[in-house]
């Protein structure tokens, strides 16, 4: 069954919060609030996360992996090179000296952590992305948008909730 999108605009977070709470508590056929509901806002708003419920973030695992890989890669590249320089006169000093190698390992640890965190961010945030089927530029100014996706049967119920909460504007996508 084809899904259709609806976008409702609100002037403040309080109203948007009430709408989301109602959407989550009301059973609407063909609409699953966990998967079919997106809130768009002009600022990072911790309360949005609260009323949307806990959703996992995995960026920190990319960070951990990147930092460890960066550090290991750094250390083994340096040590591997030094071990290959056995022909160089070292005057009795160790071929692979740990204290100075720590500095470059440390830098590579950070480099790997930062690069892979950015990669993780892009993957987890779904960027680069195509425009959503419905979008309003006023989201980047001062409005809060709620984008929902539902079967044809649920659209009217969703519209009714948006209208009840005095949505400033409702955009509707044509059915496919």
């Amino acid at each position: 069954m084809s899904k259709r999108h609806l976008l409702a605009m609100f002037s403040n977070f309080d109203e948007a919060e009430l709408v989301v709470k109602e959407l989550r508590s009301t059973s609407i056929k063909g609409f699953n609030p966990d998967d079919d509901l997106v809130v768009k806002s002009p600022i990072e708003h911790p309360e949005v996360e609260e009323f949307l419920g806990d959703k996992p973030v995995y960026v920190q695992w990319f960070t951990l992996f990147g930092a460890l890989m960066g550090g290991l890669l750094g250390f083994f590249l340096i040590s591997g090179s030094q071990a290959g320089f056995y022909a160089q006169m070292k005057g009795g000093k160790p071929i692979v000296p740990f204290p100075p190698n720590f500095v470059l390992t440390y830098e590579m640890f950070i480099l790997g952590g930062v690069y892979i965190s950015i990669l993780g961010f892009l993957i987890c945030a779904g960027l680069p992305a195509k425009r959503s089927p419905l979008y309003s530029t006023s989201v980047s100014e001062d409005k809060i948008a709620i984008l929902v996706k539902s079967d044809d049967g649920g659209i009217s119920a969703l519209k009714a909730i948006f209208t009840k909460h005095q949505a400033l504007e409702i955009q509707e996508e044509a059915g496919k």
Partner: protein
Amino acid sequence: MKDIREDIAWAKINKDVLVSLENPRKMYWVIVFSALALFSVGVGCEVYQYNVGMGVANLNNPNVWGLYIATFIFWIGMSHSGTLLSAILHLMHADWRKPIYRFAEAMTTFSLMTAGLFVMVHIGRLWQFYYAFPYPSERWVWPNFQSPLLWDAMAIFTYLSSSVLFLYVGMIPDLAICRDNLHEGWRKKLYTFLALGWEGTDRQWRNFRITYLTIACFLIPLAVSVHSIVASDFAMSQQPGWHVTSFPPYFVAGALYSGCAAIITLFIILRYVFKFEDYMTKSILKKTVRLTFAIAMVWTYLNAVEFAAVWYGHDVDAKQVLIQKATGPFAPFWWGMIFCGSVLPLILAFKRFQTNIPVLFAVSLLLNLGMWLERWMIVAPTFSHGYYPWVWDNDQWPSLVQWGMVMGSFGWFTLLFMIFCKVFPSVSMYEVKEMVYHRSLHLKKDETAEQGAH
């Protein structure tokens, strides 16, 4: 005095910042063309030195680094305050940083790019730059992974690339605002490309917050390590006056100090040029000034520690270098450093000067002059007064080519910075909105509590 007005409409924030991209005051163009002229002088000097040889710089043995490496350290140091404002104060939830951290981050990036030029310039033979890369080759050019110079190259590369990424990631929501609000043209295409399709969804914000925080956590130790490693270029050598344990913290404090002074200068310039009086407020300036004062005192203390360590130590040569700095041919510059770096900032302790823009502009420039002199006084006196009398060369004076290159670097930095501020929003729109939002919430809570009490 408020950091920002709580009643500024979000739409106005967008409008004011977007206008800055298209209609700055005329002073903007005066600054850009002056910077271009200075940069041209630097390019001319480099072309001349490239064609004729390093002799024209009046560098010789033992004076091998001269102004080039002193200025290199200066620009590396300048970069640190961007990290201070964007990362350290971010972790400390100091929200007054929000309207000013973007340009501080840009300053970090461009000052690192400027510093990198001097590594190239001081080599002289640019075409042989790749010899400096440590890689095992058939020519038996042995890399020395124990050398702080190599650590330096790696640290600066890491810092530069991480800072660029941090600056870019933090700017994505603002790039989306630019994309949505500007007319068709090259700008629209550029912002559309760079915004990566950002729409401000809850998923994007959630991941953005964690990523930004994570990179901030990485940048702080990275910034400290970068200047500690630059300090190690000196402290790990055996040269008199450089082999001092306190050099790494001394360098880091100096870096934060010069960076903060530069932030005050650029704050005042941007506030006027882009008409940002509503965002770069005097209250925020006051906080920046107080921060600068505190760091100035830390720097002064570490200077005293360094002098005391040399004076009471048993290294006769290091002591002689210190005496030579204070009484020899470098004395005017060394005392100038002390005056600009330790005495002048005392003016910042007085409330009446903490928001006096003309005074602060002049003081910030002099503070940076002091910090530049500091770097020169680290490099030059030690080279001119080594262990053996037959290497003493106190008459070395940088040639006009060296001075031209130093001037050129200021032109290059200013040019890059001003172009950035004209192409990208130099005030973070979404974070200023957050600041206004949270402050207005607090205000409402306070009013409600007051009404309840009555």
